[in-house]
């Protein structure tokens, strides 16, 4: 299986604080790679570097395509999603609450629709070419809504959905940009066991059917151990362990990091 993402010597400093210290790891295509670690270990900072919200102090991040690789450092801000096709979700859900579920999924397809609408010109003239493209976008939204079972609520405001559904909606909204790499920041936070199980199913589906690599930050170990192909453990910005879920469970370093060391 080929590499999708390689992070090399990533360092991020905020003033005197080193949030990530010389971190290197790889994530493979069609795999779920989990980043775990105690609070403040620098997990979300890794995500913010990968998705262009922070500019890392040092180090490189490469996204591998079939025959070439692109450096994520070159892309900042919205270009990460637009050009590099790296999508993310947020620890605290960031939907567009006053817009409908369907509209949320259409905003995710903004760039294609913008071109199709001739930067609004064709759209204002109501040309058929635009209407067809818009219908395709609606179909794609419906496809994803069918998968998470929210089609019947497509016209309701996203903010009115139950919490668990909002989580799922945020994930499929990210999938609507057809990412190569999907970064999920604590998708199971606040979910009950049943919802967590549904989330696992959704993530497995994305992994196997959509040829997308998933990078996952999670505290819920039932999710991490249940679906991860690969686990990276961080503590104080450093990688302390890397391996399969089973190896991680039995690792002395990891247990020490979480539970402390016996004096």
């Amino acid at each position, binding site marked *: 299986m080929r590499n999708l993402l390689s992070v090399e010597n990533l360092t991020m400093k905020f003033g005197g604080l080193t949030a990530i210290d010389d971190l290197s790891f790889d994530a493979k295509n069609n795999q779920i790679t989990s980043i775990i670690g105690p609070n403040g270990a620098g997990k979300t900072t890794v995500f913010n570097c990968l998705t262009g919200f922070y500019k890392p102090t040092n180090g490189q991040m490469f996204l591998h395509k079939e025959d070439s690789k692109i450096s994520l450092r070159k892309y900042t801000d919205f270009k990460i999603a637009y050009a590099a096709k790296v999508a993310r979700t*947020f620890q605290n859900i*960031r939907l567009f609450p006053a*817009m409908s579920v369907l509209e949320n999924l259409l905003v995710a397809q903004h*760039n294609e629709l*913008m071109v199709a609408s001739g930067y609004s010109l064709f759209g*204002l003239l109501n040309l058929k070419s635009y209407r067809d493209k818009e219908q395709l976008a*609606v179909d794609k939204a419906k496809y994803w809504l069918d998968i998470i079972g929210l089609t019947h609520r497509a016209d309701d405001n996203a903010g009115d959905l139950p919490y668990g559904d909002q989580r799922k909606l945020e994930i499929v909204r990210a999938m609507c940009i057809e990412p190569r790499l999907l970064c999920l920041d604590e998708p199971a936070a606040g979910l009950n066991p049943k919802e967590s199980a549904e989330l696992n199913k959704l993530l497995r589906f994305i992994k196997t059917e959509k040829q997308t690599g998933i990078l996952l930050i999670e505290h819920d170990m039932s999710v991490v151990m249940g679906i991860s192909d690969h686990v990276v453990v961080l503590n104080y910005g450093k990688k302390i362990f890397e391996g399969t879920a089973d190896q991680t469970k039995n690792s002395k370093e990891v247990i020490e990091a979480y539970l402390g060391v016996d004096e």
Partner: protein
Amino acid sequence: MEKKDIIQSFKDSLFTGLIALALFGPIVGLRTASKGEGLFITPQWEVVFLLVGLCILGRFLINLNSARKTEITFFSKITSKFSVITEDKAKHFAITAILFAVVFPFLPFTDRYFMDVAIMILTYIMLGWGLNIVVGLAGLLDLGYVAFYAVGAYSYALIATTFGWSFWICLPLAGVFAAFFGILLGFPVLRLRGDYLAIVTLGFGEIIRIILINWYEVTNGPDGITGIPRPSFFGLPFKRSPDEGETSFHLFFNLEYSTMHRIIFLYYLILVLALITNYFTLKIRKLPVGRAWEALREDEIACKSLGVNPTNTKLTAFAIGAMFGGFAGSFFATRQAFISPESFTFIESAIIVAIVVLGGMGSQTGVVLASIFLIGITEMFRDLEQYRMIAFGGAMVLIMVFKPKGILANRKPTILMHGDKK
């Protein structure tokens, strides 16, 4: 309602009376009058007691009312009347309103004064619709919208007086100039949101006004620009005695000369301009760029994570909003035939923002209702002279109390998957 509650609310209203006494006592109670040499204080306590009494009574009634929440009260009756107006019904309202607007100049009671007020209301409706793109859809609080109105008015006036081009050429040019200024303002404020954005846009509005006052060579400073050409009816001027070789409107149509012709023409002109603004906004809201505006209002970070370019999105909102402000400015210039910086003060911006906010952010029909309400009220109470601003303020307070999200706060999705469920 229990006896304890009544005593409690009575105490509360007495306290209100105390505050009212402290306020009204010195302000209203002591009046200075000049008799012979020097000033003397004439007390007028009876007015103070009347005002304080009103405050106590009003507070007591409000208290009684809020204690009986479950029962149908006078206030809740009013509010429920208002909440019946949803966007669905708004459609019928819109059609009726447009029909009424079209026949309005020919109604029997319509006179010159009514026409002038109607033109003014329509101008504010157009400005409100223009600003609605920026504030209501894109969520960028712009307190300097009058700057674009001014840019439009001055570009129209300068182009028309210098080159003598017709209204229909100057109008788009004025719009383009205003849009350009919109982008000019947009660039430095891209990173700002909320309060900070409001302060900078407020400053921008003042900068434009001060430039207009001081750039004497071009704008003629505080004296303003006079002799701006009046619009003509497709080449037919509204003049009693046309120049050599010209036919004027009343001669062409074989009518008795009347100044009302021009007023009616101006009325239809602003009606059409406003309806174009409305049509454009309704259309563009359903396009990707419109949805991106609203998404940006909801959550900018989420927009970035989905690859929406916030810079372009904000700039288009500023530019398009400014363009409509510019159109309205051109209309203002041609209607008045005279403009000076005095017409473009901060209070204008404040009124336009008030119209958008009171109407319900992003609601097109709400803007219409709020304009009629606010401008209409200030006109209705013109006889009260300086006190009419109290009516204006009171109207705003009332709307905010009963409809905190604006008159029409319902937002309808731009696209439906299941169609209209009824």
